[in-house]
Every structure is written in C-alpha cells, then in structure tokens.
C-alpha cells in the first residue's frame, strides 16, 4: 500500500515546531518528502501557490491563531488533496469542511497514512 505514498511531496502546515518535526518524521518513515513546514497561513499559501509540485498536504486547522481554510481553498483550487489535523476533534471543522479527511492530535503513523490515502484516493477519483 505504501508505494502509493513513496516519493510523494507532502506539504506540512503546523505552527508548533515539535509537532511539525513529528509529522516530518512520520512522513519520512513512509517514504514521503516533507515540504515546509509552514508556520503561518501566509507561508502555507506561499507553498500552495509557488508552482512546485505538491502531491498532498497536512494542514493544522489552527495556525498561529488563524484558521487554515484559505490554504485549504487554494489547495482545492489547485487539485491538491489534503488532510486536516486538529486538536479540536471533528466538531472543530466548519460545516463547509465537515467530513473531510481529518487526523486527531496526537497522531499515529497509521492514522496519518490512512488519512492521506483517503484524501488522495478521493482526489484521484
């Protein structure tokens, strides 16, 4: 299964460096190439729109006191699948994004992989 993820470039948007490092470690272990991490919505938008190839993204919902949804919109427009990560649970997502692939903090490698596969599978359909 994991060859689907091998070599994939995955953007990480996460404001806490330790959590970002955790995600990078998990991604590297799965054979992915982490992109970023972006610590703010602006940085995230920069990565989402700079023309570099992105295969998927992990988006912390609350980034430096702001909500990450502008980045989600930009990725959606560019056809890049993404997964939300949140400490708020699914209730933390507004109606517009409810039901979207989400991982809960703290993460397991399996949860990150499953959510990415789900998001990328949906995007490929």
């Amino acid at each position, binding site marked *: 299964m994991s060859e689907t993820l091998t070599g994939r470039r995955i953007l990480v948007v996460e*404001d*806490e*460096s*330790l*959590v*970002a*490092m*955790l995600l990078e*470690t998990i991604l590297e272990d799965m054979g992915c190439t982490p992109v970023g*991490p972006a*610590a*703010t919505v602006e940085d995230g938008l920069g990565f989402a729109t700079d023309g570099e190839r992105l295969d998927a993204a992990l988006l912390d919902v*609350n980034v*430096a*006191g702001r909500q990450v949804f502008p980045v989600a919109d930009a990725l959606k427009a560019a056809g890049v699948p993404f997964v939300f990560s*949140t*400490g*708020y*649970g699914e*209730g*933390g997502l507004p109606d517009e994004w409810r039901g979207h692939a989400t991982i*809960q*903090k*703290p*993460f397991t490698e399996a949860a990150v992989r499953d959510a990415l596969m789900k998001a990328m599978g949906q995007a490929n359909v």
Partner: protein
Amino acid sequence: MKSGALDAELAAAFEASPNPYMLLTPDLRYAGMNAAYLAAVGARREDLLGRPIFEVFDSGPTEDGRANARQLRASFERVLREGRRDHLALIRYAMPAAGPDGETVLQERFWSATHTPIRDASGRIIYILQHTTDITELEQLRRRAAGADRKRAIDSILSGNVLQRAEHVQQANRELETERNRLLEMFMQAPGFVAVLSGPDHVFQMYNPAYAQLIGHRDLAGKPVREALPEVVGQAYIGLLDAVYATGEPHEGRASRVELQRTPDGPLETVWLDFIYQPIRDDSRNVVGIFVQGHDVTETVLSTERQKLMIDELNHRVKNTLATVQSIAMQTARTHRDPVGFAESFQARLLALSHTHDLLTRSHWEGADLRDVLEHETKAHGPHRISLVGPPVALEPAAALSLGMVFHELATNAAKYGALSVPEGRVLVDWGVSDQTSPVLRLAWREVGGPPVQAPERRGFGSRLIERNVHHDLAGVVELDYAQSGFSAEFSIPLDGRSRQ
C-alpha cells in the same frame, strides 16, 4: 386646527350630547354640565355652577335619602382616592321637581352613574366627570310588576335579566376590577417581560417595567411594533407575530437572538430571549391581540458559549501538548538506543516543558520573565556556574515555552559535552533588547573553560529542536558556533508578538 377651536368644538359636542354629563371639582362643587343634565335634574345652569352638589341635592330628610347620598359621596371619594373610574349601577336619588300646584317637591328617580377622574398634564385629578342614565321608568316598571299577584313575563325579563343584573353588575364590576388590578400588578412586578399587543399591526397596549428595561425605556404605548422598535423589522419577529395573529397558534422561542437599540444612537445590542407569543381572543374566539411574555437569557447563553470555548481551547491545548510530548518521545527514541538513556532524556525534556508551564501558571498564563525561564532550566547544574546578565524581558506564553525547551537543550548539551561537563567550566548568558518600537531580543549563550569543542558529525535532535523552535515558533534567527575554545549560540528574536502559535 388650533387648540382653541378644538376646545370649542368639544364643548359644543359635550353640550349637545343626549347623555347627561356633569363635572365636579375635587371638593364636589359643580364645575360644568350639559343641557341633558340640566333637563334631567330640572335645574338652571346658574343655580348649580360653583355650588356643592350635596347642597343642591340633599336627597330629602328620609333615612333612605341619606343612605343614597352616602352611596354617591362614597363613589366620588373612591374616584378621588384611587384615581380610577367608579360605577354605580343603581342609585335612588330624589330630585326637586315642580309639584301639581307649582311648588317644589322631591321626586324619586333611579340612576345608573359612572364617575371618571379627569387629570391635568401633571396627572393631578382636577375634575370628576359624571355620566348618568336615568333608569327610573324601568325601575318603577319592575317594582310594579314585582308587587302584582300574578307574575308577569315582563317581570321575569326585567327583574331577572336587566335590573337585578344591574344591581349585581356593580358588585361584579368591583370584583372584576380587583381581579384585573391584581393581575395587572402581577404583570407589572413580574421579573420576566410582559407586553400586550393589539390588532393586526401589533400596537403596544400595555408593557411592564421588565419589557421597558429590555427595549431601553423607549415610549411604546399606542405604537405598532414596527414603528416602536424599528430595528426588529427584518429580524423575523414581526413575521412571527403576523403568523400568530393570522393562525391563532402560539409561538415559543428558545434562546432566540435579537438585536435591540437599547440606547439612543448606541450600537445594536445582541440579546437572547426565551419568549412566547400567545394569541388573545375576544368572546367570538377571534384573535384580537397577542400576549408577549418571556425572559432575557443572554447571560446564560453567553456563559454557556464561554464555557464551550474554554473547553474547546483546553481540549486543543491538551491535544497539542500531547502531540508535542509524542514528538519528544519519538525523536528522543531515535537518538537513544538503550531504554535507560531514553528514559532519562525523555523525562528531562518533559520536566523542562513542565517547568515552563509552572512559571506560566504562576502568572495565569499571561507570560513569564526571561530570567526566570533561564534560571528554571539551568539551576540543576549549579547556579554559581551560570552567569545571567540582562534586563527584565516579558515573554509571551508561547515564546516562554519555546525558549524553555531551547535553554533546556543548551544546558543539557553543556552538561554532557560542553563547559558544564568539567568543574571549572562556566556558562555566560547575557542579553539586551534593541529597538523599542519593534523590540528584538539579542541573547548570547557562551561556554568558557570547557574541554576543546568538536563540531558534531551530524545534527542531533537537540540542535534541530533549537533551530526549529527559533525559526519556526519564534520567527527568529540563531547561530550555533562550535568554536574550539567553547560553544556559543547567538539568538535574535522579535518580541513584538510575532512569535507564533
């Protein structure tokens, strides 16, 4: 129309009315009367004006007459005392009339009377208006019928249905009025808001002080809702009132949000209300108005919201902290193959995080002082070996947590490989804040007297954590210098709230 002209027209209408009317001053002297009154009592205007009514009509010397005068006087006194309209359904009162030989005789008459207080602009009662109906013929008819041997149909009609009822009406009216006043008083004193709206345009007929408080003490009386509370137009409430009026079905609102103009020229204020719109029906079951009742639940709604926000925020922080701890565990595990070394390093990092939390808890999470954070993370290595020189610097919670981790890694590294690994080594930390408009913390960590330094072959978790924290969380810059004479680190960190999280 000028008020003088209006007054004249009103006076003409009063004079022309077929109903007898008269006005008394509060000391019960005639102040005015119309032609119908003069005709009914058989007197001339100039004989009455200014005279006390009980001097003109002493009701004769009989006990009955005196009792009737007392009844009339009592009614006037109730009006003056209670300030309310008073009804006398049936009163027997003798009136002077011309006798068969031209002399004046007292003639028994039966009356029904209403006494209404008339007030001036300041609310003081200046007149009592009496409206009387002469029911003498009806009453005499009833009495003759009652005296006859055979009961007649007319008697049952009159005694049963009209006059007896009239006698009872007075008592019933008083009871009803007492009841009505008691209800009104309850509405007025109710802690919840109450209003009575009349007609299809929902005109305010009555509202209590709690309602006045709710809408900012505007004058609503006699105005339709859309005019009295223009800000609610477009907020669904008038539509709801229309629906209740049209269907006769009550409407109940729970924690319903409404924007109200509670101060003139002030901003709209948001309040949440529990309320019910109850249709008011007349005798034929037609809806004629709406009874509004409810209470302000704004405080409850807001505190529930605050509580939910706090729980969400707490949950968010706990989950984030767990993810941080998870990251520390995972990264630490990669650099420590043996369980004992892992446990030591992991615990030390957890304690570093925990210490900064303690500092922040002391300040109710408003922030922490840089020196306190440094002392907390280095004191285990002996305070005399670490020199801390710099002014007080207030750190925001996120910056304090990040720097706490950073200083922990520096101190741990110094104790393992650097200046603190030998007895004579020392660490010199000094700092300052430049540029007060957008302040930047410049901090130097210098190790002296330690063993010769060798740059690490590959970056460990510690140095990655330091660099990431400074760049990523603090939007700052750090340079790590592995000079042979001693390790040093130079930090440059913006303090103007640009630190992230």
